[in-house]
Structure formats: C-alpha cells, structure tokens
C-alpha cells in the first residue's frame, strides 16, 4: 500500500498523477492519496483505466473518495477552481472492495493474493 502525500501530488501534473496511480494499481498496489484528485482528474483516470482494461489481466479499478468540498479564495471561485479533492483510495478491482461509505468514512476490504 502506498500513501501519497498531498505535497507530492501538488507538484505533479494531472497526467503524472494518473500514470502514477495506474502503474501502481496494475502491479497490485493499493494507493491512498492524501488530497485526492480533482473531479476532472477523476474522470480522466476512469477514461484511462478503460483504455487499459485487458481480459484476464486487468479488469479496472476500485476508487473511493468523499464528495468534493468547495473552498478556496474568491479568485479560485471566480474561475471554478474552488472544488478541492479529498482523501481517495484506489486499488485493483479484483483486490479492493468497498464495504461501506458515507460522507465521513470509507470502509474497504483488501484481498491479498487474488
């Protein structure tokens, strides 16, 4: 399991984050992002995941994040940049399963050796 700090994510481009996640998840790792992804990055991750699905090799990802939060300066709000990502858990679909999720807690089950 890799826990990636918000500071590291801040210094990465969207594509770098998506590549980092998929490379790790495809080798069976669970990735926890401290500051999550933006909504746009989340859909790009799903899009990229779909292009990499292969029969009997990789069936996709399980991703869980909390609903995004609005914050930031007036300038950020003006240009629609006030939606901040929150803690996000991503793993291989055949190893990570969400048990329960609400606004404040994500419970997952991780299977090893599948």
């Amino acid at each position, binding site marked *: 399991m890799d826990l990636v700090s918000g500071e590291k994510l801040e210094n990465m481009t969207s594509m770098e984050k998506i590549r980092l996640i998929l490379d790790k998840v495809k080798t069976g790792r669970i990735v926890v992002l401290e500051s999550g992804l*933006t*909504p*746009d990055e*989340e*859909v790009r991750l*799903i*899009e990229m*995941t*779909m*292009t990499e*699905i292969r*029969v009997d090799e990789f*069936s*996709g*990802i*399980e*991703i*869980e*994040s*909390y*609903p*995004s939060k*609005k914050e930031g300066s007036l300038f950020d709000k*003006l*240009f*629609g*940049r006030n*939606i901040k990502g929150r803690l996000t858990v991503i793993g291989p*679909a*055949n190893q990570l399963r969400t048990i*329960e*999720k*609400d*606004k404040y807690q994500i419970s997952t089950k991780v299977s090893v050796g599948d």
Partner: protein
Amino acid sequence: MGFISGFKRSLDAWINSIFKKKRAKIGLYGPPNAGKTTLANRIVRDWSDGESFGSVSPIPHETRRAMRKEGVMINANGSSIELDIVDTPGMATKIDFKEFMAFGLSEQEAKKRAKEATEGVIEAIKWLDDLDGVLLVMDSTEDPYTQVNVTVIGNMEARKLPLLIVANKMDLPNASPSRIKAAFPQHAMVPISALEGSNIDDLYKAIAHNFG
C-alpha cells in the same frame, strides 16, 4: 482544467443564468442498470414521436453507445423547453467479462460486450464536455455513495452546470430516496419510477425549472 476553459465555463454559466436559454442539451448519466434508457424511452414516448432510444436489459451495459434525440419539447409548469437528450452508456470504473457470463452469455459474447462497454464509458465521459446539464439517474434501492455518482456530481459542480438527481425504481419495495437526499442535499432530487411512470410529471416540472 485550464485557466481559459475554466473562465469560459464560468462565463457561459453566467450568460445562461441571465438569458435563461430555452433549449438545452442534457445527458442522462448514472451507473449501469440505474434505468437511464428506460427513462429516456419514457421521455420520448411522452413528448416526441414515440420512437424509443434503445433496448433495456437486466444484463449490465446494455447501452454501449451514446444515443441522441434532438428537439424534444417538454411543456410543464406553464413553460416549455426544447431538449436535445443524450442517453449515455453506464459509467463504471471496472468491467469484467465474467460478470456478463453469470447472466448466461457465452465467453465470446461476454468478452465482446466488455470491450464495447469500455468504449461506451469513454464515450460517456467525452460527452460531459458538450452538455448544458445532466440528469443523474440513481437506483434508489442502492447505496447512493457510489464513485460514479460522486464523480459525476463533482464534475457538474466544477463546471457550474445544472444537475438534477432522479431517484429511480421507486416501484421497488426497498427504495429509499431519502438516503439519496441525505447524501447529496445540495442538489434537487425527484423520486420516480421510469418503468411505471409514477411521479413523472414532477420530473418534467423539475426539468423545465432546472434546465429552462
């Protein structure tokens, strides 16, 4: 999202809010088997020439290509709005062909369906860039905190585009629209049964109000 595209979306949202445009391109989004195509079929049957969008099936990912119907005029609440409706394939983060085999498909059919389903998800995502609003269809018997719901709502909020949540499958005994409302209280929600048509007039009023 770049500076220029963010600015353009904010400007578009501002212009739309002032001029209240009466034609809107809306997408039906949601996880597989939430009832998107059943709802799309009902809308065109109620307000158009009756030609249906597509077939429905208990097997997930029955819709694997986005389908579009232009110029559907809805009259409700004393106002009318012309909609271009896009019924999108179900959004998912994983697609395993073995899931389809459990519904009786052969391995070859299941693999073909899985391949087409991945392309369908990509197409649904591409459509997000080209819409004026979204009807997010949720199965009200399921947990609303799915990642698809969270991601679609997050994207519409970031783009400042209108979103209406449709709590579908109210005809089922364990439906719980209150769970959806509690999960996403900041958005309008209409409980319906697209299959039986119950409460569908309230949905049309909400569409005219939210997208008109």
